[in-house]
Structures are given as C-alpha cells and as structure tokens.
C-alpha cells in the first residue's frame, strides 16, 4: 500500500520533470518563459499581475533546480532580479531608499512582455501575407537586359599642344638631359674607368683617364675631372684599386689592386 502510493507520486513527479525538461529546452530565454507563464493569468498583458508572475517564475526555477535541470545563467539572473522585485512590491516603499519603485520596475517588465508579444503577432502576420514564390509569382521568362558601354575618348588640338609643350618645358628643368654634352656623370666615369683599369698595372695619374676630347674645353675638363675623381674613390671603396697622393696638390695616382 505504502509502496503503491510512493510509486504513483514518483510517476507524477517523473511526468512533471519530463515536461519541465522539454519546456526549458523549448523556451527562448527567461522573457519567453515569463510570457508563457503570463498566459495562465489569461488577462490583458497590460493588466497582468507582475507579482504573481514573479512568484510563478521563482517556483518554476526552484522546481527546475530541485530536478537538477541545468539552467542557463540568464534564467538565474532573472530569478534574482524577480526575487528583488517581489520584495519591493511586497514591502512598503522605503523613503530613504533611492532608485525606481517596485511599481515602476513591474510596469517595465509588463511593457517588455507586451512588446515581445506584439513582435510575435507581427511576425505571424508577416508570414501570413501573400508571399512571393508561394502566393505571388514573378515573371517566369525574364529577358536579360544587355548592357553595352561605349567610351568615347576625346582630345583636341589644344590638349595635344599643351601636352607637347609640357614635355618640352619639363626638359628645360632637366639640364642634365640637354646639357649632357658638357657633363660627365660619375656613373659614366665609373663605366669608363672599369673598362680601362684592367690595362694599367702601375701607378697612373687619374687625369690620364679623362676622355681626350674633354681635356681642352675648361668646362668639360672640370666636369670630367670631378667625376673621374669621384669614380676613383668609388672604385677604391669597392676594393678594385688603390689610390695615393704624394703631397698636397700633387697628382692623384691610382693602380689596380692585385
């Protein structure tokens, strides 16, 4: 007899626990759960008793915990908050205490529930509309619009002349290109010396490396001397030649490094 009673209880309990498990899985968060619980009150969401709701929710959580159902942190946070709300609603307001009153908090929760319900109703209305591909259909044989883009390039004589003038003007500021005949660059001197250095074994005055036709014009000679000297230093730095000067103003001599 005793056993019998015990068994029936445990069956009921088992059924209850199973429903709970299913429900907790089915709920999308504490707000969803609260919304479902509020339906048992069967009243307008604006006239809901938040206190009752809080009590129901806390009971639900208690039962779930007793049945060792894993509850997400969200549910426990909500439980704590509702417990706080419950105490605020039950106790007379403390004038010394700051912050919102229990009624304000309750009103906001009711608002949240009403808003969620409203969004669910909207979602249902939306999905019930005459939808494309289900109730309304698009053209089955659409035609492609061929797109062709033609680009016309334009230029006039003035553009052409300005373009040419621009190049020639630019040249004016690049004396290196135009005055090339009076200048030997270090690179040119270097190229020249690299070719000649192999043929001279002994100490030689660098002046003898200057191109012959550059010796007479003082302008050319100056440029050639300077670049040849610079090139010598470069070659010495590279370790290809040795360089020496006997005394101040004496000829600078170089020879191939052996």
């Amino acid at each position: 007899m005793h056993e019998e009673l015990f068994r029936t209880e445990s069956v009921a309990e088992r059924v209850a626990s199973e429903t709970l498990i299913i429900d907790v899985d089915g709920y999308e968060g504490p707000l969803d759960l609260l919304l479902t619980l509020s339906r048992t009150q069967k009243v307008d969401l604006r006239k809901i008793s938040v206190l009752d709701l809080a009590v129901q929710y806390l009971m639900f959580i208690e039962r779930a915990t007793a049945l060792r159902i894993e509850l997400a942190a969200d549910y426990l946070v909500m439980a704590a908050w509702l417990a706080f709300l419950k105490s605020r609603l039950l106790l007379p307001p403390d004038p010394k205490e700051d912050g919102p009153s229990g009624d304000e908090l309750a009103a906001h929760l009711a608002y949240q529930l009403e808003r969620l319900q409203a969004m669910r109703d909207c979602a249902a209305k939306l999905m019930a509309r005459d939808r494309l591909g289900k109730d309304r259909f698009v053209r089955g044989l659409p035609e492609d619009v061929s797109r062709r883009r033609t680009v016309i390039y334009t230029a006039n004589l003035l553009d052409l002349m300005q373009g040419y003038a621009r190049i020639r003007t630019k040249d004016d500021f690049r004396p290196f290109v135009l005055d090339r005949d009076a200048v030997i660059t270090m690179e040119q001197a270097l190229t020249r010396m690299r070719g000649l250095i192999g043929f001279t074994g002994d100490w030689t005055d660098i002046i003898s490396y200057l191109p012959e036709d550059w010796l007479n014009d003082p302008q050319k000679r100056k440029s050639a001397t300077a670049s040849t000297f610079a090139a010598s230093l470069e070659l010495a730095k590279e370790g290809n030649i040795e360089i020496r000067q006997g005394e101040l103003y004496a000829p600078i001599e170089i020879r191939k490094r052996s």
Partner: protein
Amino acid sequence: MANIHEESLFKAPDICEQERMVEAILFASAEPVSLHEMVSRMPHGSEPIAALENLQKRYQGRGVEVKEIDRAWAIRTSPDLSFLMRRETVETRKLSRAAIETLAIIAYHQPVTRAEIEEIRGVAVSRGTIDQLLELEWIKLGRRRQTPGRPATFVVTNLFLDHFGLEHARDLPGLKELRAAGLLDNRAAPGTEISDETEYSTDVQESLFDGEDPADDIED
C-alpha cells in the same frame, strides 16, 4: 510602328507609347525596376510615372498586377490565383522561430542594433539567424549608430518588401497601432539612464519611415 524609336530622338513618345514601353520593361524583368532604370532605357524625354499609373489601373482585376515596391515597379501574379502555380512554387527553407521574430523586430524597429534585438527578445541573437536573413537578402546593414562603439544597425531590403507584398516599410501591418501603443519606443528600464543611443534611435526611426503623416506619431 517601326519608326517609333527614330521619332523619339526628337520628341518624347506619347503617353500610350510610354505605357507600352513600361509594360514591356516590367514584363521582361523578374525584379522590381526602378524609375531611374526605366528612364535610362526609354527614349529621351519619357516620364514613365504617368504611364505606370495608367498601367496599374489597366491591370486591376487581371491575372497579374502592377505593384510598387519602394519607388520601383514589378508585375506579379494575383494572389488569388496561387493555386494554379503549384509548379512554380519555390520551396523556401523553413525559417526558425528565432529568425522570423528577429526579422519582424528588424522590420518594425529599423534601423535596429543587435543589442536592441536582444533586448526585445530577451535572449542572445545567434549569428546564424542574422546570417540566414542576410543571405535571403531580406535584411542588410544600415548606417552605424553614432554612439560609443558605433554599432551596426540592420534594416530591411526591397527584396523583403517585394517578398511580403509591401509597397513601403511604413505599410507593415499594424505599424500605426503599435506606434500608438508606444510599443515601438525604445523605453529604457527604470533606474537606468536614458542613453544617447536610445534618444538617437527614435530619431532615426522617424526619419526612416519618413513621408508619413506627422499626426500619426503619437509619442511622448
């Protein structure tokens, strides 16, 4: 009729001709065609808006209808004939409840941030849900909110409007009633400061549903 195009080089085609052209363009396209697109394809000087209105009237009560979708136009079969279209029905992947709710929240609250969606649903929005809606091209990213962190906002697309047979986002069912009931306000929980974000969001929302009668706005 062969020289219509040539003639049009000199003067805009008459309204009847324009109506034919608009008709041909809309029939040839599966997607809504914008006014701008029509103008660019029609002969110089065409003003298709009047032609569109005539066409819309002409197709009233026919097997297909001319629908406006946010300043673009499309021809769609009449919904009462859907039973004929079994063959054309596209099986869409079933949307989860979370996806449907999220879509509704975005449509009614746009532009809305992810945090706001989560606040309304009371639960985290999974990445997959947003991705699914983005993939369907029913939602897209809106402007970033000018608040700390500059969060992204979501808005619905014209494809969404077309799919659900809406002319404009302001034609969403029950929008006015929800607004009147204050259910679209971004109401902060008591005791929390009303952040800039909250104030800003109501602003932006108004501008999104612009062109509405200001008298409709019953807000505090």
